[in-house]
Structures are given as structure tokens and as C-alpha cells.
């Protein structure tokens, strides 16, 4: 099968308008009889379900949490980008598009990224209309801040809880549709297979996690909004329940998987403290607006951070990247931290951490406050006190969170930070309409591959999730459903449902019947170790080849020796985890194969064999300017398809943030 990205003709800035003007529509009477299944209720899923419901489609939405409001979009902290140019600092749709392409190291599809930039401003209008309480200036206008990899201020925020506020906005819209009866909500349900009839996605098998029952649901179309797969590393900033299962089942039923090796490792997370660690906590990148990152100039310097004078500190990001300084993109910042720690300059008891210091920001803000208040000779203490208040108003919740977790007060001593797995740019391959290679199956938000290339810029995930759900799928799904208006709902006693349910049940029973000796977490942790060390921040051919063999061996052991207690027909969190980890094993192998195949460095994918003299990622556009789309062809067997990436509206360059 050749990949058809279905990018519309015409000038880049007119493609989306042309598309909207010519796409087939479904009339209101027909929408009422067309059923759409939405998997996941994060920003993409909740916004899609709510909007499709408003349009009159019969929507069924599924989430594994106890309420749609808990999806992990809620944890996004720093903000959401939009090309509003409210700050009059030179922003535009083109600039946002350009920054996203460049940030992604020229590995994303131009037309999708441009559309994302075009609809970004509308997202802010929509959210404000819903009552999302964004931060404001004293004049009542919306406030902005800057984020990594850009030179304008286009990030809208609600303290350090932007994801929460945006998700609650989408959740409210969703619940409004539930009340109106256009959306039926299935909480504590997990999708365990896609049902394919005559080559089209026609429904799902879901497990009711409370009763353990398997349920069959028909849909004229299925919209996957199931998030990313960072938990393949065991330790990540994802929620404990975040998983690849829904997307993976779709992959095995015919949806190609795009760029699985593109994993973003976030530079500012709280370091690991012990082997019991269950997750890693991210500190918003917005901290890099005001915090300065440093390590001691001397190796193994055991002095306390505040005892090290300024001239003996190496502000290595400011030194290496004078133009962007502490605000270089995430991949660059993460690798730079690892480089310093590997070279022996790390801090803290593990030596796997660097400092993020607010001392100069506190002083700077304190002086501004003193000036505002007309204090001519403020004491050092007064300045510090006032400066701390300003920092608290900007980042208070992040400082409090850090103190709870580490027991240290970051107003007094610098944060200790280290990179952690955060976001996966890879995901189900989709065309311009966000449809996967399985007709009738769409993928939105983090679970698709489309907009961020090989590295995502900060505050662009929220933008993409809401763009896809509010403003893209409502149009593009019409292109497919307009041809389905004569398709009646297919009864769920169809043999394809029988077959899918039988397979799901068989797999669950198999997991329960192994009755081995080691827990699911044991295997998940072991898998995470392989992935972190061999398919993490820096990769090379030998490690990747080793990793593939180790994953295969560990997977075989898992299926012989895992112990899943409890039973199928009740709430059984261990059984849920077992199914997810089983899928992570398969994905992990594909990630390593993809990383091995991509014999270049780009964005977050850093192959040690390919770097510039300064240690930056060295792309090979001649051989690798394509999207890797992997077709599942049976157990441990994939075929690679390539979607060539061409650039008409942007000059492809070596990325530089100097």
C-alpha cells in the first residue's frame, strides 16, 4: 500500500480554507444516525467528543479513569501556544509554523503543522468563551510568557495548571453533551480491540474495569485519542495508567505506526531518588524563563550550592547557546544536562542532576518591586523578600510541589533537576484528515505522529490536542461519514465482533493462567531499564541491536513467568497492567528497530554516530527526510513504508540556537 497523505493542493496558507470549502458535509438529520466512538478523554478526546456531540453525531466516549476529567492532559503545566500576536512582538501563523518545524528538526509534515498554527488563535477564543481562567494583566487583557525554542511571547497560561484548566473546559463541554444525550460516557472502561468489518473500523471491544465484563460497541467511525506511550520506559512523567494499548491494538489491525523512535525527554524533572520510584515529576519548562541552569566548574565539587561562588559555576546553556541561553529547545537542554553529568560535573547524592537556580531572578524581581514602590535604598533582605513574592505568584505551585517531594525549599537552595521521558512525538500514522491507514479509524493528539516532527516545542501539545479535537476532526470526519449515510448500525452479534471478543478474552485468560513467580511491575521495570539505557537520550547501533535481543528474551520470560493475581470478572488492576505491559514489549521492539533504521540524528533521536563537532544532532536529509510508517505483519515482524517529506515553505537548515 502506498501512503497517501491527502494534502490539499494550493498555497500553504490556503490549503485548509480550500479543504474546508470543498469537503463533503453530512446533513443534520443524517448526523443523528451516525455513531462515532471516541477513545480517551484528554484534550483531544474530550474536545472531539463534545464537538461531534454538539454537531449531532451519536457519540460514545471511553476512558479508563473513573472520570473523563482525570485524563493526563490535566497535568500539563506551563501553557498553550497560539499565534495571537497580542504582544506585538512579530508573531504570526507563519512564525509559529516555522518555529514548530524548526523545533521538530524538519521531520514533520508541513501542511499539518501550518494548519495547526492557523487554528491556534481560535483555540484561545474558544477556551475563554468556556470560562477558562487564563492569567491576565492588570488591564484585563490576557497575559503571555515565553517558552523554549522561540523568540516571541505566545504562550497563554493559567499559573502552572494550564492543562488542568483547558481540560476542565473541554470536560465541561463534554458533560454538557452527556446531559443533552448526544454523548454517552463510559468511564472505567478500557478499549482492548478494534473491530474491522469489510476493511473498515466498525467498533471496539471494551472491558468494563469494574465488573470485568467484555462489551461490544459499534461505531461508523472510531476516533483514537489515547495519548502517548512514554510509559514504555516505566519511569516517565506520564500518569501511571497512560499506555499504548488502544493505539497498539489499532496498529495490529492495520493502522501503521509512524516514527515510533521519536521520544521527548524533558530537561526539567525531579531526579530519581530510589529503586522504588514509580514515576518522575516534571517541573514546567516555564521555570527556564527565570531560572538559570548550572553545574560547578570543578568536578566532584561537594560544596553546598549556595557556598559555590558565581565565578566557580558553569552556566553551561548560557555559555554554549548565547542567543537562546536557558531557553533552548528541550532536546538540546536534556542532552546538555546528560553531557555535563556524564563528564562528572553532576550534583546531588546521585550525581545525576544539575542545578536550576532562581537566586538572580529573585534579586531582579525584588529590585523592580522596590523601584515600583519608590524604595530608594532597599536592604538586601527586603529585595529578597519582595522578589520571592513575585516568583511565588508566577511559579508558586511548582515550588511547593518540589518541596513536598524532595523536602528542600527551592526559594533558598536551587532545584536539582534531571531529564525524564515525557512526550512521544511518534504515534499512529495519519493523513491530512487525521485518518490512519485503517479506513474509518482516526488518531488525534499525542497518539498520532503528525505535527511535531522529531521534537515538540513546549506548550504545543495542548495546542495540538485541542486543534485536532475542536477544529480539525469536525470537518475531516465528514469526508468519510458523508459516504456512510446509507450504512445502518451493524448489530454487535456480527462474526467480526465474536472473533474480536474471543481473542481479547483468550489473551486475558492466558495472562491470568501463567501463574508465574514475578509481578507485572518487575517486568515493566526491567523493560524500562533496557529502553532508558539503550533507546533513550543517546543511541547507537550496537546498543539498539542488543536491546532488541534483550527485549525479545524478556518478553518470552514475561509470557512464561508473570504472576497476575485475582480474577477476570472483577476490578483487577494487576490484570489491566499486565495487558498494557504485554503491549509495551511489542512496541519497545519496534521503537528500537525504528531507531536503528534511522541512521541519522534528528531532534530527540540522537545517534551517537551522527553528531556535529559541537555535539549537536546531525541530520541526513538526503537519505532520511521521510516519515517511517511501520506496517504490522505478524508477531515481531514489520514492513517499513516511507512518506517522503518535502519542504516548499521553509528553508531546511541545520538547527542552531547559538
Amino acid at each position, binding site marked *: 500500500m502506498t501512503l497517501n497523505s491527502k494534502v490539499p493542493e494550493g498555497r500553504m496558507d490556503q490549503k485548509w480554507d480550500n479543504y474546508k470549502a470543498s469537503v463533503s458535509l453530512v446533513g443534520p438529520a443524517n448526523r443523528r444516525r451516525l455513531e462515532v466512538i471516541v477513545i480517551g478523554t484528554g484534550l483531544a478526546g474530550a474536545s472531539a467528543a463534545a464537538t461531534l456531540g454538539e454537531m449531532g453525531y451519536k457519540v460514545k466516549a471511553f476512558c479508563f479513569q473513573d472520570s473523563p476529567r482525570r485524563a493526563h492532559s490535566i497535568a500539563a503545566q506551563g501553557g498553550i501556544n497560539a499565534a495571537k500576536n497580542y504582544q506585538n512582538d512579530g508573531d504570526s501563523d507563519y512564525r509559529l509554523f516555522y518555529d514548530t518545524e524548526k523545533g521538530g528538526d524538519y521531520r514533520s509534515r508541513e501542511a499539518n503543522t501550518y494548519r495547526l498554527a492557523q487554528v491556534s488563535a481560535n483555540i484561545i477564543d474558544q477556551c475563554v*468563551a468556556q470560562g477558562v*481562567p487564563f492569567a491576565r494583566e492588570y488591564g484585563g487583557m490576557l497575559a503571555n510568557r515565553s517558552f523554549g525554542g522561540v523568540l516571541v511571547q505566545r504562550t497563554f497560561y493559567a499559573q502552572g495548571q494550564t492543562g488542568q484548566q483547558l481540560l476542565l473546559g473541554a470536560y465541561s463541554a463534554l458533560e454538557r453533551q452527556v446531559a443533552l444525550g448526544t454523548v454517552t460516557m463510559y468511564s472505567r472502561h478500557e478499549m482492548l480491540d478494534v473491530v474491522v468489518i469489510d476493511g473498515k473500523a466498525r467498533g471496539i471491544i471494551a472491558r468494563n474495569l469494574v465488573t470485568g465484563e467484555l462489551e461490544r460497541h459499534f461505531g461508523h467511525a472510531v476516533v483514537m485519542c489515547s495519548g502517548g506511550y512514554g510509559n514504555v520506559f516505566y519511569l516517565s512523567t506520564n500518569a501511571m495508567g497512560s499506555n499504548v494499548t488502544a493505539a497498539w491494538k489499532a496498529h495490529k489491525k492495520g493502522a501503521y505506526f509512524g516514527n515510533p523512535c521519536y521520544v521527548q525527554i524533558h530537561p526539567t524533572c525531579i531526579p530519581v531518588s530510589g529503586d522504588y520510584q514509580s514515576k518522575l515529576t516534571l517541573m514546567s519548562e516555564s521555570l527556564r524563563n527565570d531560572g538559570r541552569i548550572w553545574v560547578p566548574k570543578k568536578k566532584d565539587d561537594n560544596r553546598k550550592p549556595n557556598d559555590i561562588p558565581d565565578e566557580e559555576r558553569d552556566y553551561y546553556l548560557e555559555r554554549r547557546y548565547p542567543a537562546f541561553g536557558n531557553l533552548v529547545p528541550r532536546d538540546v537542554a536534556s542532552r546538555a544536562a546528560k553531557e555535563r553529568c556524564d563528564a562528572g560535573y553532576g550534583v546531588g547524592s546521585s550525581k545525576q542532576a544539575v542545578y536550576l537556580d532562581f537566586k538572580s531572578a529573585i534579586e531582579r524581581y525584588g529590585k523592580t518591586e522596590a523601584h515600583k514602590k519608590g524604595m530608594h535604598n532597599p536592604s538586601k533582605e527586603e529585595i529578597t523578600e519582595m522578589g520571592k513574592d513575585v516568583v511565588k505568584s508566577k511559579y508558586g505551585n511548582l515550588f511547593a510541589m518540589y518541596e513536598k517531594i524532595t*523536602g528542600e525549599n527551592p526559594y533558598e537552595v536551587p532545584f536539582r533537576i534531571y531529564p525524564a521521558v515525557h512526550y512521544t512525538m511518534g504515534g499512529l500514522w495519519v493523513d491530512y484528515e487525521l485518518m490512519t491507514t485503517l479506513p474509518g479509524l482516526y488518531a488525534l493528539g499525542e497518539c498520532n505522529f503528525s505535527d511535531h516532527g522529531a521534537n515538540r516545542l513546549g506548550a504545543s501539545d495542548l495546542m495540538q490536542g485541542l486543534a485536532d479535537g475542536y477544529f480539525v476532526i469536525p470537518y475531516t470526519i465528514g469526508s468519510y461519514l458523508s459516504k456512510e449515510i446509507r450504512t445502518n448500525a451493524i448489530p454487535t452479534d456480527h462474526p467480526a465482533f465474536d472473533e474480536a471478543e474471543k481473542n481479547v478474552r483468550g489473551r486475558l485468560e492466558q495472562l491470568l493462567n501463567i501463574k508465574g513467580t514475578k509481578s507485572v511491575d518487575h517486568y515493566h521495570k526491567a523493560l524500562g531499564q533496557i529502553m532508558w539505557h539503550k533507546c533513550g537520550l543517546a543511541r547507537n547501533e550496537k546498543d539498539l541491536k542488543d536491546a532488541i535481543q534483550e527485549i525479545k528474551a524478556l518478553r518470552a520470560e514475561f509470557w512464561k513467568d508473570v504472576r497476575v493475581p485475582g480474577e477476570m470478572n472483577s476490578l483487577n488492576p494487576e490484570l489491566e497492567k499486565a495487558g498494557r505491559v504485554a503491549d509495551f514489549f511489542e512496541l519497545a521492539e519496534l521503537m528500537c528497530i525504528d531507531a536503528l533504521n534511522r541512521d541519522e540524528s534528528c531532534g530527540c533521536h540522537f545517534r551517537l554516530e551522527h553528531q556535529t563537532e559541537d555535539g549537536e544532532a546531525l541530520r541526513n536529509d538526503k537519505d532520511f527526510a521521510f516519515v517511517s510508517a511501520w506496517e504490522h505483519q505478524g508477531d515481531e515482524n514489520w514492513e517499513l513504508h516511507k512518506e517522503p517529506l518535502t519542504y516548499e515553505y521553509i528553508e531546511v537548515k541545520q538547527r542552531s540556537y547559538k
Partner: protein
Amino acid sequence: MEHKNLSLTLKVWRQKNSKAQGGFETYKIDGISTEMSFLEMFDVLNEKLINEGKEPVAFDHDCREGICGMCSMYINGRPHGPWHGTTTCQLHMRAFNNGDTIVVEPWRAKAFPVIRDLVVDRSAFDRIIEAGGYVSVNTGTPQDANAIPIPKQKADAAFDSAACIGCGACVAACKNSSAMLFVSAKVAQLANLPQGQPERATRALNMLDQMDKEGFGSCTHTGACEAVCPKEISVLNIAKLNNEYLGASLTVARD
């Protein structure tokens, strides 16, 4: 931070399902680092139970960074445990001493039936939001976001109310199992914003009606909810809700 290892006795509520009779089980557990989170301590306990061939304790959790609102646990008589303004997932074992006995129960409220062990059903909160916790605006092309200036104080106040994570600690702490803090946070958020004005009166009435229907109790102003709220949502929201309710009752004609 310096860390120590703790030996602890846990008394944990075990209940097979919503119909079964529950009871406390006692577990001894050693080698708990003070650097662990409370839920990581439960991970260690569950790993031990699995290795002993027993069923692990079911508990709700997801983000483990204090924002999704999924974790619950009534710890030593207090929702989310001893630390102020903290969810269970962010509570760390530094809060306890070697040799402590820790009692862990599910949220207890008629409107939150136990599903299993420490897991309860909080879908009543979703239904309260369905009754009016939104601005009725369809996706489309609303006016420019800066067309309506909102004073910073108003926007900040709306944010403070909107910070509620819907965990239900307020209900668990309340002797009446009232959901007033939860309801008031949403009503106050939208009452503070111009976008919330058109439905302001009906929202307060309908959400409170739904709260009553779900079997939550009434508010007698003891303030226990605010004291345990992990997001420090203020009881002033309840005062605001009462004000809204009174005003609405006088102005809205009802069937």
C-alpha cells in the same frame, strides 16, 4: 535530603466489592524509605502481597503529581493524610515515624459507594457538573479572546476556585458528607467571569438540586472541607454559593 528506613504497621480496609462486608487487615512492612511517596509505599506492600500469593490492595491513582484528583485514601482519620494542602500521591513517608501504625480507609459517604478495597465510585461528581457546571457555548468562532477584558483580581479569583481537582476529600471529611465545597468552587468560578453570567442563576439551583439527589448531605459550616482540601479551596466559595442560591431562588421561576 537524608533518608531513613521505617518499619510500619498498616491497617487497611479490604472489601471485595460493593455488596461484600469489608474489614481491616493488618500488615507489617519494613524498609520503607522516608523518601518514598505514600502510594509508592503501597506499591511495595502490593509487591509483597503478590509475592506471597495474596491479592494486592486496590486503590485509585493515576497522575501521581497531585493534579488528576484520582487518589483518595482516608489516612489516620484524615482525607489525604496529615500534610496540609497535599494529595495522597504527594504525601511522603517523611511524615511518619519508625514504628507507626497507619490506618487507611476509603472515602466514606453514601454518595460514594465502595467498589473494592480503597476504590470508591465518584461518578456523582460528574452528574453534578452535567447539571450545569459549564458555559453553554458550542465550538465555533466566538469573539476574540481579548474582546472582553476581565479584571486581574476577578480572573485570579476564578482561577483559585477552578483549581478544584474533584477528588472528594471535602465530602469524606464532612460529617454530613456534603459536596458543598465542590459545587461552590464551580459555581463561584463561573459567577466571577462575564462568560458565566447568562446561566448564573439556573446553574446554582440545578447543581445544588443534583447534589441533593445524589445523596450528599447539607452544609453546617464546620469548615472541615477547607481544612483537608489538597488544593486549599476556600470556604468563602460556599458563602458565595449561598449568596448565589438565595439570589437565584428569589429571581428564577421554577416548576
